[in-house]
């Protein structure tokens, strides 16, 4: 059963140096504040997993928390490149970053396999592309009935999954709605899980398009209002497009970025 705890305690307890950590949320419901807490607690050598590494992963990478990134699209959506990510890949700053690169379909299916207790998933993907030449977690597989050649990718089973949701009840049942991305799969694929929520309520009213993760499928819940900022939580907040644009300038310059990290470590709210 999920325990409702503080974000600080949840990260201290669940996220260890060297862990494989998946933070999911497809544009919507990105667990950004949880990422800042990981920076604050100075985690190191993480393997970060995320379909769409954007600002929060740029921040974690720039802060030196990661040694590897598993992903399918890395950018500042609607703005441009991730400068900390590029600096780490191209210049090894502040530490070298290994990458393992897939397509969205491949990553989504890796989570599905992880959530399903299977060691791999099958898809029609990657054929003819250069991705299998640079990524060794893409292999051919043959249909035992038709003989057709398809592609296999291995399951992802993170040590920890972190997602953001709209609500939880006091028993730790979690409810989210709107674009739900691969959050359910990430939580179910992981050994441990943390859900930050906009609010903890007495009762979860059913919502059209909503899904519930039962308390017994989640380890920790932390109430973090605005915890998806600058992304959004449908029904609670709007996407802060200005922050995405502002991040470009902060992240372009190592010194500017380090000042940003110091502010995060000092516990400041960092809304740009």
């Amino acid at each position, binding site marked *: 059963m999920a325990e409702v705890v503080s974000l600080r305690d949840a990260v201290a307890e669940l996220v260890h140096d060297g862990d494989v950590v998946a933070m999911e949320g*497809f*544009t*919507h419901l990105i667990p950004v504040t949880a990422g800042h807490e990981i920076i604050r607690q100075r985690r190191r050598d993480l393997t970060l997993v995320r*379909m*769409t590494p954007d600002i929060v992963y740029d921040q974690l990478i720039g802060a030196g928390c990661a040694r590897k990134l598993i*992903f*399918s*699209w*890395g*950018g500042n*959506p*609607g703005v441009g*490149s991730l400068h900390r*990510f*590029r600096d780490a*890949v*191209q210049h090894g700053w502040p530490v070298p970053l290994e990458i393992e*690169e*897939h*397509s*969205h*379909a491949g990553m*989504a*299916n890796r*989570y*599905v396999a992880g959530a399903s207790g299977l060691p791999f998933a099958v*898809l*029609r*993907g*990657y*054929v*003819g*592309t*250069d*991705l299998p030449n*640079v990524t060794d977690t893409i292999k051919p597989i043959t249909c035992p009935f038709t003989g*057709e*050649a398809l592609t296999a990718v291995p399951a992802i089973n993170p040590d920890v999954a972190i997602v953001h949701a709209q609500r939880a009840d006091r028993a730790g049942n979690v409810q989210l709605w*709107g*674009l*739900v*991305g*691969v959050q*359910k*799969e990430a939580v179910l694929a992981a050994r441990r899980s943390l859900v930050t929520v906009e609010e903890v309520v007495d009762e979860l009213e059913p919502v059209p*398009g909503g899904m519930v993760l039962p308390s017994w499928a989640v380890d920790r819940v932390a109430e973090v209002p605005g915890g998806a900022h600058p992304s*959004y939580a*449908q029904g609670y907040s*709007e*996407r802060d*497009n200005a922050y995405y644009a502002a991040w470009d300038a902060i992240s372009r310059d190592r010194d500017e970025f380090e000042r940003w990290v110091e502010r995060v470590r000092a516990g400041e709210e960092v809304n740009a």
Partner: protein
Amino acid sequence: MTTSTYTADEMMSVAAARALSGGQRCFVGIGLPSTAANLARRTHAPDLVLIYESGTLGSKPDRLPASIGDGILAETADAVISVPEVFNYWLQPGRIDVGFLGAAQLDKFGNINTTVIGDDYADPKVRLPGAGGAPEIAANCHEVYVVVRQSKRSFVDQVDFVTSFGHGRGNGERARLGLRGAGPTLVITDLGVFRPDPDSHELVLTGVHPGVTVEQVREATGWELRVADDVATTPAPTSDELAVLRALKEASS
């Protein structure tokens, strides 16, 4: 209708929008493709079904979405589904008519690179965002339209990295690999329109936008460009098309 002044980007978006027709199911990449697809839906193709990889089927936004996961896509959709479902149940089986993609680099056989510029993947000149949904969009849609700003740098003989497979090295390589969709059948740039030769699958210039010469297109192409016997000239944007396009952009800024 009189035609007012317009930019090359506006001409590109209008030309791309016109390629879509009502009732088609269109898997929309963000950026130029999304602009064109939304313009089509707001002008001649109101029945166009827009599908975004964030998990929305039949989105009907009244402004341009700021990202692939803009809330307006979910709020106006016929159905909102998970990301695994959009790829596995909707894209992969070939239910989508047109995949509408952008590119950082595009080559003479319609292969798309959005991964790295430079020959060395491990030490690239420029690290691009990566694949996203594009490889499987390119593989599994019935056909693929590419919208891209054209220059010698973006329009190359052979991409540095094949992120999304077009026609490979041509001459039917796509079919030999067992890919089901027809691949890139149309490329629209800020200068003109290209289609693959039916046999060699090399991209051939079939149209130029108003005021653009074939010579200009050649100069912005990184290979020995083939030109169709009849090169059409794209009709200029109508004032209605421009008004809708500008209103869409205005509403999203």
